[in-house]
């Protein structure tokens, strides 16, 4: 349909379409979806295997006239089937969000079209609003695919029953996942707008992502870098030493991957009893605050982007 739409929506829609045409973005998003599917399959497979072993063992014990213990599968919340998704979100989801955020602005800067956009009769903030709206749409889209996979997994598993409260928890997990990816998307957007070169614009947020995912958790929760790819050991309690005590106080609010994993573990019912987030800020609140800060930085860099000198230097 032909007509005049709001400039914000025009920029948002057009930017989203451009970004989706990018091969890197498509490949990373596809990889994210595949990994989400794998995480669902892993959860289903692990549960099915335990259940099958239990059924065999129960039959054996029954035949031997011994007492049959309760099925361990029934002892855990079905939501914990999705625990691997939190790892894939922290790894490939966040990385996809960075690339999406970076390309949303990088494509315009690389193409050199900023002056041609700058002379259009748009409001002073229309460009920034459009870019943030495009990012929000793409991140929500990515999270929606993950949510669809999770919902489908629970619906097709015959032995699993989800209560209304658990559906709400799952929705909460998807909301937290969207926030977490959104933080990295906004960082990618800000770096894409603020950096002088395209390389720095991408390297800066990736370095930040590496730090948040692999380095800070070592300081706030005494984790080996490899533990960052495990949803369970990532929640190990740090030793009760003054170093970890102070590290948790000072670095806890910045340890966003820890915050995301604790929030996910709480919402998906796999947080071990007695284990709490080392940070003094509750994980979900921490993520909301981080989204606010990342949003403010992205807004500032986007609204200060020069439409005459916006091209990359290299």
């Amino acid at each position, binding site marked *: 349909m*032909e*007509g*005049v*739409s709001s*400039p914000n929506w*025009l*920029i948002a829609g*057009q930017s989203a379409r*451009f970004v989706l*045409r990018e091969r890197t973005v498509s490949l990373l998003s596809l990889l994210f979806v595949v990994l989400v599917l794998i995480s669902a399959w892993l959860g289903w497979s692990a549960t099915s295997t335990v259940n099958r072993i239990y059924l065999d063992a129960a039959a054996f014990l029954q035949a031997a006239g011994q007492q049959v213990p309760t099925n361990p599968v029934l002892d855990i919340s079905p939501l914990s089937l999705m625990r691997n998704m939190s790892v894939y979100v922290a790894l490939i989801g966040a990385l996809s969000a960075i690339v999406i955020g970076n390309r949303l602005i990088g*494509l315009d800067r690389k*193409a*050199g*079209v900023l*002056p*041609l*956009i*700058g*002379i*259009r*009769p*748009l*409001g002073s903030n229309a460009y920034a609003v459009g870019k943030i709206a495009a990012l929000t749409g793409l991140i929500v889209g990515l999270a929606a695919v993950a949510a669809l996979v999770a919902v489908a997994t629970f619906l097709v598993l015959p032995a699993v029953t989800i209560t209304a409260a658990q559906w709400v928890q799952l929705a909460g997990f998807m909301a937290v996942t969207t926030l977490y990816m959104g933080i990295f998307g906004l960082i990618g957007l800000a770096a894409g707008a603020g950096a002088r070169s395209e390389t720095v614009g991408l390297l800066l947020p990736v370095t930040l992502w590496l730090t948040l995912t692999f380095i800070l958790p070592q300081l706030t929760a005494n984790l080996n870098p490899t533990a960052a790819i495990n949803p369970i050991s990532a929640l190990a309690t740090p030793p009760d030493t003054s170093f970890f005590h102070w590290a948790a106080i000072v670095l806890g609010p910045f340890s966003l991957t820890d915050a995301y994993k604790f929030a996910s573990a709480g919402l998906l019912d796999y947080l071990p009893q007695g284990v709490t987030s080392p940070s003094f800020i509750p994980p979900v609140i921490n993520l909301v605050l981080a989204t606010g800060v990342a949003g403010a930085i992205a807004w500032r860099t986007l609204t200060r982007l020069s*439409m*005459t000198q916006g*091209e990359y230097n290299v």
Partner: protein
Amino acid sequence: MPEPMIRLNRLTQSFDGMTAVDALSMDIAQGAIFGFLGHNGAGKTTTIQMLTTLARPASGTATVAGHDICNAPLEVRRRIGYVPENVRLYDTLTAAENLMFFARLSGVTAPQRRVNEVLELLDCTYLADKRVGGFSKGMRQRIGLAQAILHRPAVLFLDEPTSGLDPMGIKMLRDLVLRLNTEFGMTIFMNTHLISEIAKTCTSIAVLSHGKLVFHDRIEAVTARYGDDAALEELYLSLTPVGRLAEVA
């Protein structure tokens, strides 16, 4: 006396303490084809950037189509088209897709029809479905011109439009500029280095040197006083630092 289409009033711009445009004041009449001459770094592009509201002046002001560039930038933008020196477009999109995007951003109603009209007007319908990435400089320049006139602007700003074009491309562009001026009444503000083009196209000229206006007159008056292209070149060289150096030598 009708209001001028463009009025500059002590327009000034500076970067890092260096004055790029120094208290520039002049009027450009409605329907004029104005040629803005000057050496590299004279401040021509900076002037265009201020007049197109891409950059805010350090001091002074200007009106374009009756609207102040600082106080009513959106009104100015609704009435202007701009073709930068190097036309940059989305290389992965086709010419028509690029034009559709800019038409929508400019608030053009029925953008598809307008894009087709403009492509036809500029005789480049054959480029519509081709990706811009493979275009020559001349083709880009045409699509650059197309995006600038989609919303039927009253004033068209061209920054070194003939730069890098072959003689055929230069002639094509000149014809288009003349057509836009005569058929659609557009006022044209053109930065250029080509003195021969000035004589063939412009109705008035100005010369900028180190950010200062050193000459401004109607072309008839200039040609009456100085004669042909060669004399015009002499005038230009005498007003610019390069020319003065040659004189000293």
